[in-house]
């Protein structure tokens, strides 16, 4: 899917720039954006290292497990037929790391969850209810503190960089609730 989207964007822009006589600028932009990507990652990697470090402490000392266990009632609500404790803990870990803002460790847990659900689904070609609910709800979970966004606001001289935390929380909470309801309704129709 990403293959088509990526190729479509590239080829469509290339064609449009050729038609509007901007093909030279387009070539220049391709080279510039590659190095821009590297510069961006370098500036990001410090924050990423710090949070991964702290999260590793939370993980190794069992702090995350404690919070995961406290959240079990919620996962029971979302996945009433899910009995496998390992799958459930993967689901919770994915939600948790999403909430703690470590999107990449969340991706790791999410992929592990999907593999487990795939096995329960007997490697069939139609997604199970749990798969859809998990994917949609995990998408809706947002970090409690959007670190990168706040850092960006700070850099750009915001008077109150943290003022977006509450709107983020509310919009993400609303998204989670709507996503759960939508999944529960749609899974009966599809």
């Amino acid at each position, binding site marked *: 899917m990403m293959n088509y989207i*990526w190729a479509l964007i590239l080829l469509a822009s290339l064609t449009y720039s050729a038609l509007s006589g*901007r093909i030279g600028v387009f070539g220049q932009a391709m080279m510039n954006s590659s190095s821009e990507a590297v510069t961006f*990652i370098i500036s990001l990697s410090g924050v990423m290292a710090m949070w991964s470090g702290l*999260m590793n402490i939370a993980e190794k000392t069992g702090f995350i497990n404690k919070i995961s266990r406290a959240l079990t009632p919620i996962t029971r609500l979302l996945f009433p037929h899910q009995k496998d404790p390992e799958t459930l803990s993967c689901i919770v870990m994915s939600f948790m790391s999403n909430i703690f803002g470590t999107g990449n460790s969340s991706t790791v847990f999410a992929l592990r969850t999907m593999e487990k659900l795939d096995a329960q689904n007997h490697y069939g070609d139609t997604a199970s209810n749990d798969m859809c609910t998990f994917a949609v709800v995990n998408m809706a979970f947002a970090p409690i503190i959007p670190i990168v966004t706040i850092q960006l*606001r700070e850099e750009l001289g915001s008077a109150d*960089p943290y003022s977006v935390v509450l709107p983020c929380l509310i919009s993400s909470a609303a998204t989670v609730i709507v*996503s759960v309801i939508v999944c529960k309704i749609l899974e009966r129709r599809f």
Partner: protein
Amino acid sequence: MNSFFSAVSAGFMPVMAAVIVGYGLFKKAPVYDYFIEGAKEGLKTAVEILPFMVGIYIAVNGLTVSGLLDFIYMIFHPFFRMVHIPVELLPLIFLRAISGSGSFIILQDILEIAGPDSFSGRAACSMSGGCETVIYVLALYFGVTHVKKMRHALAGGLIGYCTGIAVSLVICNIL
């Protein structure tokens, strides 16, 4: 009220760090070693996502520079004006569903042009915080399974996405 929320928000990150480290010390764990170990993993992840970033930056910058994106926005302008949504948010609303890093550049642009404390600036931040890159996540998640039919996953994801956008606009208007 606002300063209270700001204080809570500003204090949250340091407090969370303190709780994590404090809990580790209480458990007599080698917290510094764990930190270094995790930080190393974080740096590795940063390097691992670099190729994706390069690919997405090229596609997104190509889309912008070619003028194709402006053309698409022009089509949607009248609708946005009709419902009183600032037009500068258009690129973010569209791109956020496709690419996280791509929409980050656009977020940066919006904050630079409209200012981080303006309505557009705050709504843009809230959207980036509350909405996930639907298409990328679905491709990634279902990529590790044998599933060919995603059923309601795409519809559910997009409905959730639109909810995030709408709530961000409303909340930033109120607060």
